[in-house]
């Protein structure tokens, strides 16, 4: 074997072991979650957690359904606001704005994405909650949560969407322009089909971030365990449930909180598989 081949073999070994490590990490966390949730799952069964009911662990009731609905509705609300805003921002940056101005805008989005979530939560609690409260008390609600989460995932969404629009081959764009199409026409016929998997990826990544957000959500959603019937209803998410009660939980209660974590991991797994379903079609 020549020296260069040898070093390449070594390099491949490093790469492969890193990849295996990353995968093992996930399995390890999953195994840990399963182990910690096992005591209560064995005693009460999975149905106790996913059927409608109350969450009062000290009285032996563990239904997570309301909190699952809370998590999903806050995430959906955030995406409903952030997706159009993010995609249009990306579109504007590429086609409807002087490049210099667009690059300033992107810098600002990058800074926005770097602000810690607890700061967003604090801002939401002192500014957005009182504002919503004036329309409809209590203020801490599904709507407030969706607004603040939307602002939090917006930079990720806009920047990723921008990257996927930028990566569309120049020939395609120029070709379409040469056919006499206007900017919107170029976007619809050349850019959108090529950038779609990337744009979907951006939305799914934002979904993942919104599902997992904890600190901000605790401060602004009200944390009441209930299935929301209006956007002004307070909700509790699965992550908020873990963070609120973990420090004080023992035995089955503690174990039940790990089931919340397991359920959340399951939601993320569904999102990721959706993402992989979207990608190969256009790859």
């Amino acid at each position, binding site marked *: 074997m020549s020296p260069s081949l040898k070093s390449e073999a070594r390099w491949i070994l490093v790469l492969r072991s890193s990849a295996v490590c990353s995968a093992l990490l996930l399995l390890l966390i999953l195994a840990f979650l399963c182990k910690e949730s096992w005591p209560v799952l064995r005693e009460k069964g999975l149905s106790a957690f996913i059927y409608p009911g109350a969450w*009062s662990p000290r009285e032996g009731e563990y239904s997570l359904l309301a909190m699952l609905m809370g998590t999903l509705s806050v995430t959906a609300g955030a995406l409903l606001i952030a997706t159009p805003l993010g995609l249009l921002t990306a579109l504007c940056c590429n086609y409807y704005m002087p490049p210099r101005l667009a690059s300033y805008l992107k810098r600002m989005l990058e800074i926005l994405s770097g602000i810690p979530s607890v700061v967003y939560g604090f801002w939401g*609690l*002192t500014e957005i*909650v009182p504002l919503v409260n004036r329309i409809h*008390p209590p203020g801490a609600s599904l709507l407030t949560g969706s607004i603040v989460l939307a602002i939090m995932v917006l930079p990720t969404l806009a920047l990723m969407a921008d990257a996927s629009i930028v990566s569309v081959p120049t020939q395609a764009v120029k070709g379409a322009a040469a056919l006499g199409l206007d900017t919107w026409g170029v976007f619809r016929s050349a850019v959108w089909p090529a950038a779609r998997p990337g744009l979907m990826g951006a939305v799914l990544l934002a979904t993942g971030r919104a599902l997992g957000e904890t600190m901000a959500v605790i401060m602004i959603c009200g944390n*009441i365990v209930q299935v929301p019937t209006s956007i002004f209803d307070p909700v509790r998410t699965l992550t908020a449930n873990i963070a609120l009660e973990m420090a*004080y*939980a023992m035995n089955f209660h503690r174990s039940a909180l790990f089931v919340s974590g397991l359920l959340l991991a399951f939601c993320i797994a569904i999102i990721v598989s959706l993402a992989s379903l979207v990608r190969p079609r256009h790859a």
Partner: protein
Amino acid sequence: MRTRLLTPFTLLLFLILPHLSLAVESSPLSGKLVITGSSTVAPLVLEVGKRFEKAHPGVRVDVQTGGSSRGVADVRQNLADIGMVSRALNPDEQELKAFPIALDGISIILHKNNPLVSLSEEQIVGIYRGQIKNWKDVGGKDGPITVVNKAEGRSTLELFEKYFKIKNSEIKSQVIIGDNEQGIKTIAGNPGSIGYVSIGTAEFAAGNGVPIKLLPLQGISATVEEVKAGKYPLSRPLNLVTKDNSKALARSFLDFAQSAGVEDLVKEQYFVTFSKK
């Protein structure tokens, strides 16, 4: 030759001497002290522990949280040397010894712009049960009441439940909060809300311009002074508990935690200093 010998020797001397003098001056305490329990008491004990470690370099103080019940359980099973319990010991826990290190009171708080100056205990219970939903039913301005409650497992909630004889499942709240700070911000941002938090934190916030007000209970105003005097009804001791305090290290730490030398730390955590009788 002379310098060669001297240098390592002096160096050795410099290394050993400080330790020698320390060993003579300070107590021979060393080892690890495990303290577990209440998350309310833990921040205070953590600070006390740091100061204790500074005074006794051979000692490591390990503070872990998990609630008052964990504190009791761990001490019983010898998993911890000292437990932190944010309430008086129950009748079935009398085999343990309690060492109060501070007091804490809970105050009902409203937004500053709420014209009400007091509520009876029946009114508070009615509001928390969801039977009274509008401020005008208790003599206030017309407007919906936002009930702010603590998350399950918090010791403040337990004390509140016990005092007002109400179960958490009976409480109809619109907002659930984690810590005191979040509670104060929530009330400050919502003129129609009612909540309850630790008195020290609330008094400090109100004194610094946060728009909240502390309601009196049974006609006794909610102040740190009244808690200290033992008059304010909704208060509790913050205890350190042990099974046996014969171990020199644990005993020394308990003495230190109850001494006047940590009063500034108690105040820093917004608790009420406990005057030893």
